[in-house]
Every structure is written in structure tokens, then in C-alpha cells.
């Protein structure tokens, strides 16, 4: 059983939800990646999404765009990130999921990329500009290497298509909770709960919700209908501002819930 499956089994056993933070690799320098991953694990992260900076991140809002620019200005490259993960993998036990647009992978060379991330101990990959129609370009090699391809569904994905995507069954299903790009939101679409419920019903793999989630209230509400949340922009901001205590508190959301119960 791979690390992602183990993680979700353990969460299920404990009857709790997954908090998956997203961080931009190289924001603050690549040297702090280890320290940050260790900290996130300590604060209770179920897994961590490591973002790869890209010059043209069309699915991202201003917070992650800015973090990406900072990372690129620091000279961060995909090669550098994969190398760093290989170095620090043994000090982090939770699953590490790489989130990258396709072009940096394409430039790296797909076969070489898959070999290198497997050796580095990366557990999964999210490629936001690669819908299932185009995944043939990398999916067979990822599968062969045992690296999970995490797929996305959104509010505009028809139910039949959600079923097809979920049935491919790698890792978990990443459910985008907004019509739009990443970044914090005060309100969600009124149909969100019904949508999450529908996704959860048809998905044979765990369902995580992401995009726009920043408050504990939202997290508790949303996880009534799914298995956890991905929190990006909020975490990126807290790290950039070095508000570690606030981050620890935010990340304790599901522990509090369990304690209260």
C-alpha cells in the first residue's frame, strides 16, 4: 500500500479529516523547504502539496502568482525542487504531492521527470492544466512508477464525467470548490454542499476539497461532505508573514473537532 492510501486509512480509522497544506517551493528559498515540511507535519498535515513555480500560472490567483514570482526570482527550478525533496524525504513521513503545470515537466523530459520523482520519494502529482483527455502524455509512466496522478473535478464538470474521472481511482479526487482560480473567498456557491455530496457519492477514492478555503468554519462545513481540505493561498500567506502560531491553530481544526466530539 502506498503512502497516500495508508494516510487516508489512518484518517478513517481515527474518524477525522485531512488537512493538506499547499506551499510554493522556493518561496523564501529552497533551503527552507525541509524546515517547512517538517513543521507542517508537526502541525498535523495529512499530506503536503509542494507547488512548482511557473511563469504563467493560469489557474492561480494573485497570492500564489506572487509566491511563484518570488520563487522564480530566487532561482527555483523543477530540477532543484526534485533534488531537494530527494535530500529531505527521510525527515518527512507524510505524503508529498507535487503540483506543477505541464510545461516545466515537458521541458524536464517526461520520462526523466517520472524517474527522478520516483527516486526522490514523491507520492503524487497534480497537473492543473492537464485534463484527462491529455493525460496519456504522462499517466502510463506515472502508473508504472507507482506515483499517483491526482485528478481534479470542478463545479462545471458534469456528473457523468465526474464518475469517469473518479473511477480512474488514483490517490484522492481533488474537488475544486469555486468557479475560478485559487485564492481566499468569503463565500461559496450555494450549490457547493450538494455538489460535494454528489461527488462523494460517486467517488471510489477519498475526496478532498480545495480552492478558496481559508477559515476553520469553512473547513468544518465543507468536510461534512468530503474527506478533507487543501489549503493553499492562506498557508502561503501565513508562511510568507511568518505567522506560525496562527498557522498551527488553523491546522488544528480537525483535532479540535475530534476533541469536542
Amino acid at each position: 500500500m502506498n503512502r497516500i492510501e495508508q494516510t487516508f486509512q489512518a484518517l478513517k480509522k481515527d474518524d477525522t479529516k485531512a488537512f493538506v497544506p499547499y506551499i510554493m517551493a522556493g518561496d523564501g528559498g529552497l533551503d527552507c523547504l525541509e524546515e517547512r515540511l517538517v513543521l507542517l507535519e508537526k502541525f498535523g498535515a495529512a499530506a503536503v502539496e509542494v507547488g512548482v513555480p511557473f511563469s504563467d500560472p493560469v489557474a492561480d490567483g494573485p497570492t500564489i502568482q506572487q509566491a511563484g514570482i518570488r520563487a522564480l526570482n530566487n532561482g527555483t527550478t523543477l530540477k532543484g525542487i526534485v533534488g531537494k525533496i530527494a535530500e529531505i524525504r527521510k525527515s518527512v513521513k507524510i505524503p508529498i504531492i507535487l503540483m506543477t503545470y505541464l510545461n516545466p515537466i515537458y521541458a524536464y523530459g517526461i520520462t526523466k521527470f517520472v524517474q527522478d520523482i520516483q527516486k526522490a520519494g514523491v507520492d503524487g502529482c497534480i497537473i492543473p492544466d492537464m485534463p484527462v483527455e491529455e493525460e496519456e502524455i504522462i499517466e502510463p509512466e506515472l502508473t508504472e512508477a507507482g506515483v499517483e496522478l491526482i485528478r481534479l473535478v470542478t463545479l462545471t464538470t458534469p456528473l457523468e464525467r465526474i464518475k469517469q474521472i473518479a473511477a480512474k481511482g488514483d490517490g484522492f479526487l481533488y474537488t475544486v470548490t469555486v468557479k475560478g482560480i485559487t485564492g481566499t473567498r468569503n463565500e461559496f456557491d450555494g450549490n457547493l454542499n450538494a455538489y460535494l455530496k454528489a461527488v462523494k457519492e460517486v467517488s471510489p477514492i477519498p475526496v478532498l476539497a480545495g480552492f478558496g478555503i481559508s477559515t476553520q468554519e469553512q473547513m468544518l462545513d465543507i468536510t461534512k461532505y468530503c474527506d478533507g481540505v487543501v489549503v493553499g493561498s492562506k498557508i502561503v500567506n501565513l508562511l510568507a508573514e511568518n505567522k506560525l502560531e496562527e498557522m498551527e491553530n488553523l491546522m488544528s481544526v480537525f483535532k479540535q473537532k475530534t476533541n469536542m466530539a
Partner: protein
Amino acid sequence: MTAYTLPNETGRFGKFGGRFVPETLMKAITELADAYEMAKQDPTFHSQIQALSKDYVGRETPLYFAENLTKYAGGAKIYLKREDLNHTGAHKINNAIGQALLAVRMGKKKIVAETGAGQHGVATATVCALLNLDCIIFMGEEDIKRQELNVFRMELLGAKVVSVTSGSSTLKDAVNEALRYWVANVEDTHYLLGSVSGPHPFPMIVRDFQSVIGKETKDQFLDRNHSLPDAVVACIGGGSNAMGMFYPFIDDEEVELHGVEAAGRGIDTPFHAASLTKGKPGVLHGALMYLLQNEDGQIQEAHSVSAGLDYPGVGPEHSYLKEIGRANYHSITDQEALDAFQLLSKLEGIIPALESSHAVAYCLKLAAQLGSEKNIVVCLSGRGDKDVDAVRARLKGGNQ
């Protein structure tokens, strides 16, 4: 040779093209592809386009034999396909009308678009005024400075122009913002993409709407000379006027196809926009295509004196035509384009757009190579009024 039928149903031209977009947009581009297939079968749709093309745009545009330019070049006969005479001053209106009518058919009342030089923005704003559609145009801050007059034109036509300050603040960043806007507003908004780039079906749709250029050229040339031209020449940023000119000639193997990219300050400097000449395949804005990028896959900024060519990618179909060797791609520097801009003005009384000046500059070289027995058609994709201020400033400041 079997007839050319690309793209295939998944939007591929060979390995190029495809649909590399966030999942949020898959429904919209699938619907668009379906709506376009339906529209194509519908004679009403075609007659709507034809009526507007004739009475509103002023088609067909003339095919003009440029005798003075021909004498100057001292070789092949040079004809100009006068897309500069279209309403709004460039070929961009051909596509804007087609897509706006398609949006209306799909029940979408809002249009979002990107623009570089402003020609596509003006064409889009114009059609939106005509068809009573809401219009929002994303334009890089740098381009807004370079093309102030076009910004005012778009606003006059009722469009909202949004300044884009991310990245290099040029066309590629305007596309990013337009895509982000579309992701967030996909249900009631059509993205009226201006070039033969982006995810399938855009490269095909834009090519089809622009192919009126090549079809007319072919008919006009046949009428006059009872033969086909030996070569056609067009400038390339994303590549829409070139694809429109090339497409009807692809199966006519005796006709050479020449695309002209912007070499900026020179292709051996970092300041050019020659994606096919100097780039390598990669994925941006929904398509696999030739791209200017560094070795880590980060997209590089393009540079050209002409805002309309300032794009680090090039349509997937051009990428394919390069790969199979059906079309040839060249590059022309800022200086050569500026010289051609002045030359055509003085010799023919036609002030070309800086974009089109690249095609004119290359055609001078090609005419000399081919010799006096041959015929070349240059796509004069736009008129130069929009560039007069910028060229004047440059000439005053001394040529670099």
C-alpha cells in the same frame, strides 16, 4: 497526396495542439466545439457571416498588383492582399464576427478577449457593439502605453479595457488574465480568442474564419492569371492571418508558404519573438506548440517593435507545418520592418501595420530570389495608422 483534414477530433495537428486547460474549462470548450460543428452545417450561419462580411466589413478585399514595389524588388511580381482595407483596419474582424455570431447562437451575452496591438480588441469591441454583447478586453500595461489610441477606440465602442500588470505586461499575460476571467465566468461568457492558438477548437475555428483571406486570394489570382501564385507570404505572431492565407493552399503543393516572425533586435539576442525559429515545443495557453522558453520550461518574454507579434508561442498548426516542412518560416528584424513600413508608404501610398511590414520586408528578399517569372502574394494584414505615432517617435530618436 491525400487531402489535408487536420486537426483530428482531439484537436491535434500531428503532436501539436490539444486541450491543455484546467478542468473548469473542459465543459466550455467541448460545448464550443459542438456548437461550431452544428453551426458549420447550418446555411443560416454562413449567410449571416457572408452578409456581415460584405456589407459591414467590406469584403471581398482587393488583390492589388504592387507594380512599384515589384520594380523596386527587381524580381517576382508582388501582389498585396488588402486585409488592411477591412472595417477596423485589419484581418482580425473576420474571426471576431464569426465567433461573436457563434456566441450568440450559444446564448452567451458576454465576451472576454485579450489583445496585444489592440487590433483584435478593437475588432471584438466593434462586433460586440454591433451585436449588443457585453465586452471586456484584457490588455498588457506595456501594450496600453504603446497603443493608447486603440484603447480609446475600444472604450468608445463600449468595451471595458482592463490593464494587465502581471508578468511582462504584454500579450501573453493578457491571455493569462483572460483565461483566468473565463475560468471564473465560464457559464455566461464566451472567450473570443484572437489567434490560431489556445486549446482546441480555437486554432481550428479561428483558422476557418480567417481562411476567407486565402480563398479570396486563390479565386482572385486564378481569375486574373489563370494559375496559382508561386508563393504566399504572411507575418506571424500567433499566426492567424498567416493560417487564413495558408490554409486554402495547403493541398496545392506547388505554392510555397512563407511565414515571417519578428526577429526584434536580432534572433541571436534575447530580444525577439521568433518562436518557430528559436523556440522549442512546449505547453502554454492550452496548446502544445513551439514556445520561447528557458531550459526549465519557464516562458520567456517576446520582443518586437510590433505589439501584435509580441507573443512567445505560435499556433499549433504552424508548429506542425514547420515540422512536416510544408511551410517555411523566416524572421525579420525591427529595423527591416521599419524600413519596409516606410518603403511601402512611399512606393505604393499604402501605410502598412508594423506587423504586416515584416511580411513586406521578407517578400522583398523572396522576390529577388524567385526571379521575374514568378508571382508572390503578401498578406497585408493591417493598416499602419495605429503605428504612425510610435514609428515617428522612433525615427525622431534615430534608428537603433
